[in-house]
Each structure stands twice: as structure tokens, then as C-alpha cells.
């Protein structure tokens, strides 16, 4: 039985850490961050929810199948790697493009971000699948 303080702090932490993990994901490939550490942040806050609120209570309203997320992330990452072959380049070749958006400025679109999104899903799926199945074992 966890105390009220821990439950309140967890409810505050969930949106902030999720936003921070997405910010780390999008800041990757030339700043500190990237898919792996963003996925670790998201998995840590979901596992904090599992620990604080109890696994059975959390599964009654939030029970996605994390192993399918693992497969989807691996598919995205490998399709990004093979996609460079279609354009006649080497395997894993990345490209970059600068797009001008009105009222905002210039943003940078890199194909390494797609690979990072794949890594993000793989890390979340692996960690939370292990966490949930170890917790269910009696």
C-alpha cells in the first residue's frame, strides 16, 4: 500500500516525463538525446506507475501489448535502413533536408529521426514487456 504522497507525485510526473522523453527523441542525432534514452525515460515513468499503483489496478484501464510495439519499432528501423537502397545509395545512408515553415522558421528534417523513432519503440516495448511479465510471475 503506497502513500498518498507517492501517488500524487506520480500523477504529476507522468505528463512531464513523457514530454521530456519526446523532447529527447526529437533532439537526437546532433544534440544530447536520441531514441534510446527517450525510450528509457518513457519506460521508467510507466514502470513507476506499475510500481506505485499496482500492476493489477493499472492493467484494468491501461493494458497495451508491448511486444507488438517492439515488433513495430523494429520494422520501422529496418525499413528506414533498407529505404536508402531504393534511391540508389548505400545501406543505412541518411539524408537531410531543410524546410522553411511560415511563421516559425527553418526546421531540419533528417531521415535519422525515423530510425530514432524505431529505436524508441523497440526500447519501450522490450523494457515494459519484460517488466510486466516479470511482475505477473508468482
Amino acid at each position, binding site marked *: 500500500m503506497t502513500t498518498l504522497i507517492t501517488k500524487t507525485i506520480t500523477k504529476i510526473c507522468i505528463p512531464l516525463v513523457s514530454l521530456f522523453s519526446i523532447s529527447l527523441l526529437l533532439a537526437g542525432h546532433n544534440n544530447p538525446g536520441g531514441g534510446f534514452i527517450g525510450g528509457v525515460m518513457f519506460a521508467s515513468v510507466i514502470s513507476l506507475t506499475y510500481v*506505485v499503483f499496482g500492476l493489477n489496478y493499472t492493467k484494468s484501464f491501461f493494458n497495451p501489448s508491448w511486444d507488438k510495439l517492439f515488433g513495430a519499432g523494429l520494422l520501422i528501423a529496418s525499413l528506414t535502413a533498407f529505404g536508402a537502397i531504393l534511391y540508389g545509395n548505400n545501406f543505412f545512408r541518411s539524408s537531410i533536408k531543410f524546410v522553411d515553415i511560415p511563421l516559425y522558421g527553418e526546421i531540419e528534417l533528417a531521415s535519422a529521426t525515423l530510425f530514432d523513432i524505431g529505436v524508441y519503440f523497440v526500447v519501450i516495448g522490450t523494457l515494459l514487456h519484460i517488466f510486466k511479465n516479470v511482475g505477473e510471475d508468482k
Partner: protein
Amino acid sequence: MNTIHLLDIALIFMVLSIIPCIHRIIKGPTIPDRVIAVDALATVIVVMLGVYSFVQESVFFMDVALVISIIAFVGTVTIAKYLDEGVVF
């Protein structure tokens, strides 16, 4: 010209304050002593990263400090629940 700033002296004292934390981790008689020592060590490292970010005039260390503090918080809460009740979930 090399000058020693106040923040450098603060960093030296923070490195010195890691030593009792490691002593408590190695010699702590019970498990809660070690858990609290690890939490204090993480706090000292986070503050060191903040001060070092001012020294280097770079914002990149703040991300590292945030990641270390979140992971230390989750680990401490989990170990505290395990030591209190005997189960994690």
C-alpha cells in the same frame, strides 16, 4: 591567466563529498543505509552537473542531470517499496 573561480572550489568540495557516500555504500550495515547513500550520491552528481554547466557555459549537461535524477527517483521508490512490503508490484 589562470584564476580559480568560486565554482571550481564548489566542484572540489562536491567531489570530496562523494567519498563518505561511497564509504557508506561499501560498509553500510543494512540495505536502507546503502539505498540512502546511493540516493545522496545521485543528488551530489546532479548538483555537480548543474555547477559544471555554469562553468562550461553550456546547456547540454542539464539534460544529463534531469535523466539521472529521474532514474534515481524511480529506483529509490521501487527499492523503498520492496524493502517495506517484500513485493514490488
